[in-house]
């Protein structure tokens, strides 16, 4: 693979790591979801840069466009869930979710 690919790979891994550390350390539900978004950015960067290095940018583009469309659906559902959790417990603390009782 060309040397450029390793540069993109380095930054994609950095994004995924930043998101994963954020997921481990943060407690606010919206913050956790922002961390998931950052992981997704790293994955889409990796997909497209691999297509770029391999010379099949059109297939990579189709995959990234599909991923973005699915991501919007995911974001809408997750944010609706977060709003419902907030209405239920008046807090966005993820530790409060363990105390929910039917």
């Amino acid at each position: 693979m060309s040397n450029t690919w390793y540069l993109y790979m380095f930054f994609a891994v950095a994004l995924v790591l930043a998101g994963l550390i954020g997921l481990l350390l943060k407690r606010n539900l919206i913050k956790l979801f922002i961390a998931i978004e950052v992981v997704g950015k790293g994955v889409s960067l990796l997909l497209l840069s691999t297509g770029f290095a391999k010379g099949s940018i059109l297939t990579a583009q189709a995959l990234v466009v599909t991923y973005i469309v699915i991501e919007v659906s995911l974001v809408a559902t997750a944010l609706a869930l977060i709003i419902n959790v907030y209405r239920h417990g008046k807090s966005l603390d993820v530790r409060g979710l363990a105390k929910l009782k039917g």
Partner: protein
Amino acid sequence: MIFQTSLLIGLVIFSVLAILLRDLLKSAISLAVASLLLGIIFFRMKAPYAGVFEISVVAGLITVLFVLTIALTKTGDEVRESKLVNWVFPVVFVAFIVIDALVMKSLLGRVPALAPGAETGTFGDILWRGRTLDLVGQIAVILAGVFAVLALFRKDDKHE
């Protein structure tokens, strides 16, 4: 190449800021800036459709959804983040970045080159004609999202 690298560095910095910043609104905006930079990177990789989707949908629509959610959930208790985050996150992140750089340096030139892809036609051909069943799956996922949001916001008739 230098411009592309600085775009990538900016992308990582704004993504880290989005996670680290205490104010939710500011972190949503830095996530949007990161998406914008990623979109420009896509444009420079000769992937204009992915860039347009990234900028219009991720930097635009998803940011609006985030800001709306932050506005709707504002009047609650402030979530008390662990005090460790402020120094554990940078330390662990820098350590992982160093490991990442070392791994990439040792991998340099070792990953076998993939066979060049035989792509013909336009982006439209690849997007619409090269795929069959996964389009149905994608439509199903979008419909599932729509129904999930409708179900989550339905009114309970008994209590009205």
